[in-house]
């Protein structure tokens, strides 16, 4: 955000803010312990407003729910922006002194009247207006979001539509005010920090900046390609064209987790060479030419991860890994050696010290300090720096320190996969409390609910298609079809249905999803797939055979 890829606030600020706008996130189930900080804020008097197409378990704790139609968030945010401008609720001083591009933003949001926004988003105009007013007038306000914002073909624009609201009202760069993407995995943030992005080196430094590159080239004794690489979606396109023929996958199960799984499976099968490094022989690993069995990074090896509040914290080795499983660092160094490079890192701390040399954001974070302080939030440039609670305080210096924060005008575009007569329902996907992603980690621990995929469906649609709660159904999209069990309830609006990707063995949900992706982030539109649903007729089972041991 404004040059650094991380949430601007800390969890403790959620306890002392006045308004939390939870947008496209069911944090109660997906970030349960962070949600406790939000609840503490609510008990301290904060308002909680949830924007979500589903009436989720987070909504149960909210003061207000904006039941936005899937993929219409930009229209909602722009209407809020327009209302704030027209009602004179914007922070004029902040807009004038700390931002740029306001005139173009004002022009861009002008068509988004409350009436038009209600027609597009399905959210009653009074609720849009009331939320805009509350957000603009709250002394402190935070916007927190997750994949409901970023798993769209226009994800980056959707994020901009939210950052525009924060700039308009000055709700960024202060304690209790900011913009926070809640990270879905324990080291999504850290992966980005470490440069596991196609256009960044360690510490979010631009790979296309010759000075940055020169510094890394000196440290590493090699030449770094001067152009940004491919993001995930671009890699698949390159595989399609035969430009990318070999792949090394570490700790990911894309055959199950990526959109349009049938295509992904074909692309993986067509690869000339595939290496997979994982704890388990996942469906992706089964396709590999070589599998490196890896140690579990959080309990069988040493290192660091970075959380959603930019806190770098230690993971530690508690167990010896089973069998021939090895530490990721060991595997990578052995591989480098076979490729003719002597990487000599005796341990994870040695790698970390190199990170500190190359990344100003991390420079002050020695292992000793991480230990003493229980983790440190970047940026932490020196060894006497405590780390930053919140980012972008510079925007409140007068004159503003560094570049002004830009408004980025955005426009609503409907989801790519169109609902029509053949595919009359919109499927959105997400997570459930007890499970995680493709289920590799959560299939065995004895979750107290059935290990089964449900299609959540509104009673009106269930009635229309002759489906009863508990029926087996076939769900089909333009790309494929899967089976699931119908779960009929009104937490989804008529026309909307919901599934997870937790049980790909029996229900490979991503066979359905569309691989239309955001051109900038490369993230696919998992949140909007046009589907149709049909009841699978029950097989007639003789009554005496229904239950073993029944009288």
């Amino acid at each position: 955000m404004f040059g650094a890829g991380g949430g601007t606030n800390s969890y403790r600020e959620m306890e002392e803010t006045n308004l939390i706008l939870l947008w496209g996130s069911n944090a109660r189930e997906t970030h349960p312990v962070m949600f406790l900080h939000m609840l503490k804020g609510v008990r301290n008097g904060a308002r909680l407003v949830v924007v979500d197409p589903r009436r989720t378990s987070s909504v149960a704790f909210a003061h207000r729910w904006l039941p936005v139609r899937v993929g219409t968030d930009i229209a909602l945010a722009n209407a809020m922006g327009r209302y704030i401008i027209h009602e004179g609720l914007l922070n004029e001083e902040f807009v004038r002194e700390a931002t740029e591009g306001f005139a173009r933003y004002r022009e861009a949001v002008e068509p988004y009247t409350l009436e038009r926004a209600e027609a597009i988003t399905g959210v009653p105009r009074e609720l849009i207006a009331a939320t805009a007013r509350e957000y603009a007038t709250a002394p402190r306000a935070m916007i927190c979001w997750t994949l409901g914002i970023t798993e769209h073909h226009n994800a980056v624009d959707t994020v901009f539509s939210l950052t525009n609201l924060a700039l308009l009202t000055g709700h960024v760069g202060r304690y209790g005010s900011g913009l926070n993407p809640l990270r879905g995995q324990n080291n999504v943030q850290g992966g980005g920090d470490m440069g596991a992005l196609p256009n960044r080196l360690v510490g979010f430094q631009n790979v296309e900046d010759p000075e940055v590159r020169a510094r890394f080239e000196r440290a590493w004794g090699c030449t770094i390609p001067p152009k940004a690489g491919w993001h995930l979606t671009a890699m698949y396109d390159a595989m399609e064209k035969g430009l990318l023929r070999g792949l090394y996958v570490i700790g990911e199960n894309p055959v199950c987790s990526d959109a349009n799984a049938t295509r992904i499976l074909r692309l993986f099968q067509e690869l000339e060479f595939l290496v997979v490094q994982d704890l388990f022989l996942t469906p992706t690993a089964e396709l590999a030419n070589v599998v490196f069995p890896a140690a579990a990074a959080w309990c069988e090896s040493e290192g660091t991860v970075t959380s959603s509040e930019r806190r770098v914290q230690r993971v530690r080795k508690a167990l010896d890994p089973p069998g021939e499983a090895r530490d990721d660092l060991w595997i990578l160094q052995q591989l480098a050696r076979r490729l003719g490079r002597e990487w000599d890192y005796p341990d994870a701390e040695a790698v970390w010290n190199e990170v500190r040399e190359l990344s100003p954001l991390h420079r002050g974070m020695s292992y000793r300090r991480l230990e003493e302080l229980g983790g440190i939030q970047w940026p932490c440039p020196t060894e006497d720096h405590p780390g930053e609670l919140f980012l972008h305080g510079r925007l409140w210096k007068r004159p503003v320190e560094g570049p002004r924060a830009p408004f980025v005008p955005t426009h609503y575009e409907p989801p790519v996969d169109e609902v029509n007569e053949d595919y009359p329902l919109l499927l959105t996907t997400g997570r459930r409390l007890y499970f995680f992603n493709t289920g590799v980690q959560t299939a065995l621990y004895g979750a107290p609910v059935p290990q089964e995929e449900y299609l959540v469906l509104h009673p009106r649609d269930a009635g229309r298609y002759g489906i009863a709660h508990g029926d087996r159904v076939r769900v089909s999209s333009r790309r494929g079809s899967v089976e699931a069990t119908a779960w009929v309830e009104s937490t989804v609006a008529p026309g909307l249905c919901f599934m997870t990707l937790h049980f790909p063995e029996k229900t490979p949900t991503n066979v359905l999803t569309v691989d239309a992706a955001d051109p900038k982030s490369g993230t696919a539109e998992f949140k909007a797939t046009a589907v149709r649903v049909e009841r699978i007729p029950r097989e007639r089972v003789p009554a005496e055979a229904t239950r073993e041991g029944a009288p």
Partner: protein
Amino acid sequence: MTREVQAPLVTVEVDDQRVEIPEASTLLQAIRAAGKDVPTLCYHPVLEPIGVCRVCVVEVEGSRTLVPACIRRVEPGMRVRTETPRVELSRRMVVELLQTSVDTSLAPDVQRYAAEYGARPERWQPFAREGFRTRRAPKVDNDLYVRDLDRCILCYRCVRACGEEGQSSFAIAVAGRGLGARIDPGFDLPLPDSACVFCGNCLAVCPTEALVPKTQFEMRRAGTWDERRQQVVTTTCPYCGVGCKLNLHVQDNRIVKVTAPLEDPITRGFLCVKGRFGWTYVHAGTASGPGSEAEPSTPAGTL
């Protein structure tokens, strides 16, 4: 910026020692500030005090009754005595009555106070009416945790951790009265049919193993639970991006329990179901796994 406003100080005397402490502090805080201590059972550092167990009582000059230190606020000039015969008699009786009514053999604090105050629970036996000692079988109705209510001292810690001071699920409460009082998710429902979301924050605060992870319960039964052979290693949870610190309790190169350090401001000791129980996969396919020997070599969901 934050609400760390310095509160005015109040002076109190603890066993003739003067202590200055912010007003609105509790007597327990004042006692600890004076370098002394009193026993506690229902008190828990991350929960609000409720003063139900009465083991922390002290004498306050001018007060007719004994005063629970955990919940009573300091007042200027208060004079507190923490170790009088009256106080010690009362604490001894509280411990003896607990020992008489439930199984406190796995409650280390109760054991310690019993030794400290010379508890002789057997002296209450002649007074025990029929039904005084309700022996209840452990309830094993899910794979994650067990309710062994025969060990429950009704300290309410679990109820509070499940309620608004913690998880905010409000899944359990005290049902029944008198000798029939018990922790219950409503209508004696099995946990999977209740509002419980299996975060296990109730067992994290339970002082008696009345609520206990199933792994620990089973290892105790098999005689293999041995805390002297366990190491505790602090790491970060492998699931979502919140970054909860986990304490892995490891015995013989196997995780046997996961807790969260109370002093971590991110969790305050509270976790979710995946963080507390979702570690089993680490041992998938290895001999004497946490489930059965017949476990598949990879999780079923991945094949």
